[in-house]
């Protein structure tokens, strides 16, 4: 069943979508890379602990690093081959980080998927274990370990699972293609998620520029009364967890440390749902994901099914290479994605897109003075006052910034996008958040 939601969150912006570059391109299997670079830290929380040593032969799907704590997940070999190095390599976040490097060997390069007997009737904790062992993190980009999100404390009952298919970032079409091509996996995954959490209701939230995906999912759902597709307005950041909950259910998640579970909701990306389904049914670990390679700087935009750890250079090669006037490379979407130094960076679990931008496609400006137009205030989906916050940050008044709810910022960048004076609003608020966190740590 498709429901058109008339509600939406307050604020937000409308950047140009650029989805036409890749939305018609079916998901294509990327070539098996000669080499993968796997950062041990691909999830929010503690990094994984390596289980292999240099020289070890590994088989595809083999666990090569174990979870480093509760808020952490294991890591698996995405190809069969030999561990040739464990050391610091460039991580998409711009730092050098410990990574395991595997070079392709002779072993099988496709997972043999064997159905787990009685997977449909597994007990809750068994299902959770399967999710955890598969190394699943959120596909949306924040890479929060999935099993943690699915283990709310007893006093926080979950009544609704929302699958996030909003994909509000410009350029990205990975989720869109996934919804079109694997609706069964998504719906099965949703059912499993509902079972684990005891949620009565399952909702798939989609922006209204993807009606074909909504229809495909609604057809797959059929007569199931507990699951529905809710179509929401195209508006950035509609795919923000809190914004989507507001648009779909009209519930507001309390400010930090408030979480969706405080209003009885767990939100998961549609990609995560497919991964959960495959993890439970086939014990398939997180070794591949869909990545949109797009931007005017790449010859042909594509949606690729990519092995984790594949270098961006390999992926760009398969899209015909880059044009001469490449100016900026972004991992993720253009609103929240990370600028990259070069193409030797691997695609990781949280990589939803690789954008190759030509001269003039992206904008950076000198800051001018604030004229108090209030556009950042109108744009902020968290109802903050970015211009005042930034004045406090400029003067190092972090305590006051904290009182003005700087920590509520979801870093979506709507304020910076909207600002006619081109002030680095979200960037400075992020800086304030880091500073406030550091001070809290010091105090405790």
């Amino acid at each position, binding site marked *: 069943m498709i429901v058109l939601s008339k509600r939406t969150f307050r604020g937000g912006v409308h950047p140009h979508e650029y989805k036409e570059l890749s939305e018609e391109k079916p998901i294509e299997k990327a070539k098996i890379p000669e080499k993968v670079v796997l950062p041990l830290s691909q999830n929010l929380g503690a990094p994984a602990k390596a289980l292999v040593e240099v020289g070890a032969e590994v088989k595809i799907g083999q666990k090569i690093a174990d979870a480093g704590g509760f808020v952490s997940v294991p890591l698996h070999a995405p190809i069969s081959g030999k561990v040739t190095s464990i050391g610091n390599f*460039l991580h998409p976040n711009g730092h050098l980080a410990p990574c395991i490097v595997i070079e392709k060997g002779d072993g099988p390069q496709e997972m043999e998927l064997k159905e787990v007997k009685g997977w449909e009737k597994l007990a809750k904790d068994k299902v959770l274990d399967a999710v955890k062992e598969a190394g699943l993190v959120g596909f949306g980009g924040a890479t929060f370990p999935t099993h943690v999100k699915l283990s709310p404390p007893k006093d926080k009952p979950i009544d609704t699972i929302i699958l996030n298919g909003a994909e509000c970032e410009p350029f990205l079409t990975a989720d869109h293609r996934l919804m079109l091509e694997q609706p069964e996996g998504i719906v099965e995954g949703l059912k499993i998620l509902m079972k684990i959490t005891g949620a009565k209701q399952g909702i798939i939230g989609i922006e209204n520029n993807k009606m074909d995906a909504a229809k495909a999912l609604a057809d797959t759902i059929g007569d199931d009364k507990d699951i529905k597709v809710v179509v929401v307005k195209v508006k950035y950041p509609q795919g923000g967890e809190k914004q989507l909950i507001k648009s779909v259910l009209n519930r507001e998640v309390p*400010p930090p440390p408030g979480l969706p579970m405080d209003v009885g909701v767990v939100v998961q990306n549609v990609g995560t749902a497919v991964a959960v389904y495959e993890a439970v049914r086939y014990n398939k670990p997180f070794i591949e994901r869909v990545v949109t390679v797009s931007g005017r700087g790449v010859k042909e935009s594509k949606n690729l099914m990519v092995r984790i750890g594949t270098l961006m250079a390999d992926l760009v090669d398969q899209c015909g290479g880059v044009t001469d006037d*490449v100016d*900026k490379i972004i991992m993720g979407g253009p*609103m929240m994605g990370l*600028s990259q130094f*070069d193409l030797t960076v691997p695609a990781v679990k949280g990589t939803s897109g690789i954008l190759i931008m030509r001269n003039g496609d992206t904008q950076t400006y000198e800051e001018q003075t604030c*004229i108090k137009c*209030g556009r950042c205030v109108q744009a902020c989906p968290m109802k903050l006052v970015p211009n005042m916050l930034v004045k406090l940050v400029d003067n190092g008044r972090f305590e006051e910034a904290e009182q*003005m709810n700087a920590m509520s910022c979801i870093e979506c960048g709507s304020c910076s996008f909207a600002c006619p004076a081109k002030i680095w609003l979200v960037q400075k608020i992020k800086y304030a958040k880091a500073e406030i966190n550091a001070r809290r740590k010091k105090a405790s």
Partner: protein
Amino acid sequence: MPEEKKQVSTKPAAAPEKTQETEEKAIALKPLRFSAAPHLRDADNVPKIMWDVVIATLPAVLAGVYFFGFYAVKVLLITTISALFFDWAGMKLLGNRGSLFDGSAVVTGVLLAMNLPSSAPWWLCVVGGAIAMILGKQCYGGLGNNLFNPALVSRVALLIAWPSAMTTFYKAGNIFSQVTAVSEPTPMGVMKVEMMSNGTVIAAKGISIWDMFVGNIGGSLGEVSGLALVIGGVYLLLRKRITWHIPVIYVGTVFLMTGIFYLINPDKYINPVFHVVGGGLLLGAIFMATDMVTTPVTKSGMIIFGIGCGVIAVIIRLFGSYPEGVSFSILFMNALTPLIDKVTIPKPFGAIKEVANG
């Protein structure tokens, strides 16, 4: 591939650049631009906003030129050039950031000229531009930092320093026949004198509302034509340079309050329509009270600002000694704006619910 081997040894890769050199598949790239998200920005910018305001003033400016001819052209040109010069001088003198071409000085210059009588002598225009840009803007640190609307600061300063020069209004003629330098009081002036002397508004009632609406009256060169001002306001609204809140609530408050007084005693108080089109209210509400820099940023703040302006303007018009209260009301509310901003900070997302639960 010996080089490749070196890179994947157990030793940590030294630096990102090195990785690129030794990378087998390294694609030759020019140095990439590196910056924090968001990488996309809206195409709008400050100069576009300012020039849009200049465009919006055109109907009223042209109306002023039509009714006051050469005199209006002279005041407009001298004031704007003076504003540009003193903006530049102030920036140089005080070392403030800003650009002469961002349109903000032109906006202030044109708005100030619209607030001056067409009879204003050249030196008054020059001094006006200087006060607006130096005292009203650059002294505070330049664009974006001023507390008060620079054009209004200047207008009020001139009004207090040279009251007679600032209140000698030429009779509206039209540019095609000869515009004569015959002075005529403004409708608000007529009303004030009558109210003060014998407590009636008979003569003021004789002034045609239609004349006041199109601008065929004495008055400052930009305030006479309500029609032209409204056209400019609609342009600003359509271009999303202003929101409806302040103008509508300001004018609405004045209409409502004066309407109440009119109903109580129609002999002593003039009708509310006269108040809306007879003086500087529309110029003030559409162009001066919507200045982004000196007005609140939140919607609720704008509503408070509009009501405050309306109440103060009516009190001055009906009970003060000045015939016109628009400038004072806006300056007064400008002073309160930081406070209004502070008390109207929106509740963050989810905060209300938390209070309800707790």
